């Protein structure tokens, strides 16, 4: 068998008079090794993170050159969303004399607004205007909402003083 004989030391004389090698067992105690292996296993299992971060790809329009003619759109198609502070969204339809309404980021809030507006206005164009008080999370959430509701035409545009006035006046 696969046993290593240890050179003759100590083997006493047996009946047959033959010098017999003392047979030591080849079984070594593997407990420490296994302990260590499982320690490592636990360590790596706990420190490994499988989920790589997700990313959201956004493509911004190129900066218009001064000589470029900007396309004109019908104001009836435009819906403006202003991201305010404390996770509020102010939105209005059209440009002249708009009626401001306020909503939030919940499923019954902005998502419902987007769905109903989208079915009422053919070729709706959304203007997303994050205000200075809004947070990065709001921007990501609203872009996410665009993906969820499958909006085709939207743009991230800077807020204008007019928008700020409108929101202040609305007192919502």
């Amino acid at each position, binding site marked *: 068998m696969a046993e290593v004989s240890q050179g003759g030391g100590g083997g006493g004389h047996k009946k047959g008079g033959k010098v017999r090698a003392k047979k030591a067992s080849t079984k070594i105690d*593997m407990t420490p090794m*296994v302990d260590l*292996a*499982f320690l*490592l*296993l636990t360590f*790596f*299992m706990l*420190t*490994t*993170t499988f*989920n*790589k*971060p*997700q*990313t*959201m*790809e*956004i*493509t*911004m*329009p*190129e*900066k218009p050159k001064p000589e470029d003619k900007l396309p004109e759109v019908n104001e009836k198609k435009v819906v403006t969303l202003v*991201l305010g502070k404390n996770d509020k969204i102010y939105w209005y339809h059209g440009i002249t004399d708009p009626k401001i309404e306020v909503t939030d980021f919940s*499923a019954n809030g902005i998502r419902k607004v987007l769905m109903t507006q989208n079915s009422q206005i053919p070729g709706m164009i959304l203007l997303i205007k*994050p*205000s*200075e*008080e*809004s*947070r*990065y*999370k*709001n*921007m*990501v*959430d609203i*872009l*996410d909402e665009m*993906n*969820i509701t499958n909006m085709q035409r939207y743009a991230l545009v*800077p807020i204008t003083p007019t928008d700020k006035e409108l929101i202040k006046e609305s007192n919502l």
Partner: protein
Amino acid sequence: MGKAKVHRTSPSLDMTPMVDLGFLLVTFFMLTATAAPDEPVAVDMPSSVSEIKMPETDILLITVADDGKVFFNMDGKYNRQELLKSMGERYNVQFSDEEVARFAVMSTFGLPIGQLKEFINLAPDERKKVNQPGVPVDSLNNQLKDWIIFSRMANPKLRIAIKGDSDTNYPVVEKVINTLIDNKVNRFNLITNMERNPS
């Protein structure tokens, strides 16, 4: 009367398959593990339903902390060397070969170029203690712009990703995005956590 003897089996069982499996798993986890790079700030990312995975290489990462500090990182050892040399030329800061080599293996930093030399020469564990002021992104002194320009020169395949904290004020993010657009980077990634799609 002879007692009925219970047949005793040896209490030592063969653990070989378990140990085999144990080692298999150890090997697997060791090979798949990547050391997490140490970040100077903790960033709590917003979540989105997007399922695009982040590519592993050729990333330029702009981290925006909740206090509005902007941090910069780019991968690729050789590209980083080239980047630091060109940045040094642009801002008239001399970096020795050793400093360039040390910069190549560094991770995220958020310092104006003037303080960078000192930072590079610190020991790695001392660097963690430094309170980094962030890369300047003001319109007067927009160093982030130059970092982006020279990074893209060093590695044209670079993808730009923004990792922002949920509570960052929008104007800071807007500044970063405008810097990108000014440099004709119209397509970039926002790193988010995963969220289940409600629809």
